[in-house]
């Protein structure tokens, strides 16, 4: 009665499934140890999010540079989306020309600090002309001026145990970066746009600029930066406000 062929198939199939499951478990362990699992890896989109993030971090250089452009290629129209925060503290600071605005940097750092806009401008400034695409589909090229986030992070001294840099704006759109992007040379704290002070709707007085990710990662209206080793207890533990609204935490796509 027994068919030797199907029994052999059954055994091979069983072994293959077992080996596959073991392989996946080992892969998941390794991925977790090397920081390849994004904070929004749960849920129905977790498979895609994890594959995209892990693949990009494994296969790509951490220091690859987004394309930079010439002055002549700067877009004449600089589109903008969203309104400035409607909160009392922000409106008061805006009315005062941001003279009383301070950036607070704390968490797992050796020297928690606060910076006025002038103090940030005293750090070596640099400019980049890069392309920014919104996840909706539109895009523009602009020149951003500011201080590299790595300069500020090195100034406050990031703990060796740190894993993420969390940024809080005056509204709800908080976000976070892994250290690869936080220390990336094109990750800026920008206070200038196209040679002028950063306009209010573009995120005044200070916004993040993450050249290798979609626009929504470049958080506007910054007020605080926190260095941490875990995102689990921040918000819903998904790494930023974006996944709570249906977007990916990692916007390198």
């Amino acid at each position, binding site marked *: 009665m027994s068919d030797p*062929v199907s029994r052999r198939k059954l055994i091979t199939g069983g072994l293959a499934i077992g080996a596959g499951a073991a392989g996946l478990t080992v892969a998941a362990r390794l991925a977790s140890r090397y920081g390849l699992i994004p904070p929004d890896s749960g849920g129905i*989109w977790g*498979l*895609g*999010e994890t*594959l*995209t993030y892990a693949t*990009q971090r494994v*296969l*790509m*250089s951490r220091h*690859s*540079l*987004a*394309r930079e*452009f010439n002055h002549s*290629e700067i*877009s*004449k*129209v600089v*589109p903008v989306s969203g309104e400035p925060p409607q909160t009392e503290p922000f409106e008061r600071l805006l009315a005062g020309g941001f003279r009383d605005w301070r950036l607070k940097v704390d968490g797992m750092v050796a020297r928690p600090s606060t910076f006025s806009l002038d103090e940030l401008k005293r750090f070596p400034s640099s400019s980049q002309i890069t*392309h920014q*695409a*919104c*996840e*909706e*589909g*539109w*895009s*523009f*090229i602009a020149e951003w001026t500011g201080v590299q986030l790595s300069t500020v992070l090195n100034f406050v001294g990031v703990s060796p145990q740190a894993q993420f840099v969390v940024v809080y704006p005056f509204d709800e759109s908080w976000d976070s970066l892994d250290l690869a992007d936080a220390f990336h040379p094109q990750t800026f704290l920008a206070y200038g746009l196209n040679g002028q002070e950063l306009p209010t709707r573009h995120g005044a007085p200070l916004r993040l600029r993450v*050249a*290798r*990710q*979609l626009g929504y990662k470049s958080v506007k209206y910054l007020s605080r930066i926190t260095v941490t080793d875990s995102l689990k207890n921040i918000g819903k533990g998904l790494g930023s406000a*974006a996944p709570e*609204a*249906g*977007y*990916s935490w990692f916007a*390198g*796509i």
Partner: protein
Amino acid sequence: MAGFASTPRLAIQTSDIVDSPRRHSALVRFTHWIFTLSFFGLAVSGFAIILAHPHFYWGETGGIGTPSLFDLPLPTMLGGPSGWGRSLHFQSAWIAVLAGALYFVSGVLTQHFRSQLLPRSTDLSWRSLRASIIDHLRFRRPAEEDSYNILQRLSYLTVVFLVFPLIIVTGFAMSPAITSVIPEFVTIFGGHQTARTLHFFLGDFLLVFLLIHIAMVILAGFSSRMRAMITGRAGSRKEPA
């Protein structure tokens, strides 16, 4: 057909399906249906992404307030932002690409591409090409062949080796992270928005291909073709009593 007479390894354990040639290998069938599922996800989510900004541009940049190449007759931001659309698009793309990679590697190793898709030299004459085109235009039902005809071979080759790679690369061209490593993915097309527009047209091409593919399956005999792609065999001839 005699040449395909079932060997013991391929035997199907039902008495009424005999002797019909195996049209599709298990791997082709498996990847076909996985791909079908992910293509559906890609099409639905692709449309959801377009709904957020149904305007298309040429060159590097484009947005509201700049001249567009063309606009779909849809309101901007209909249905709000497309967060879920993007997540579904990427998840489906990953499954499609993994299934495609499996199909590609096995197609090379088993010589499936060489024997089943590469046109036979005898088929490449204008005469036989014309005959095949006329047969198709007259909706003449093809003879029960055990392999693809010349038009099938050419269209599958185009889709597998030209359209799929192009739609993947134009997708990569829109990734700020990927183009930081390989800028050529976007520069060969002349810019981010050009790549986005081409990605849209390539997707449309695949949708048209799908419609023709389904039409041909129906014309060629829907149930036998479906059976072939599910069980591997088209035949259902009763065994002579």
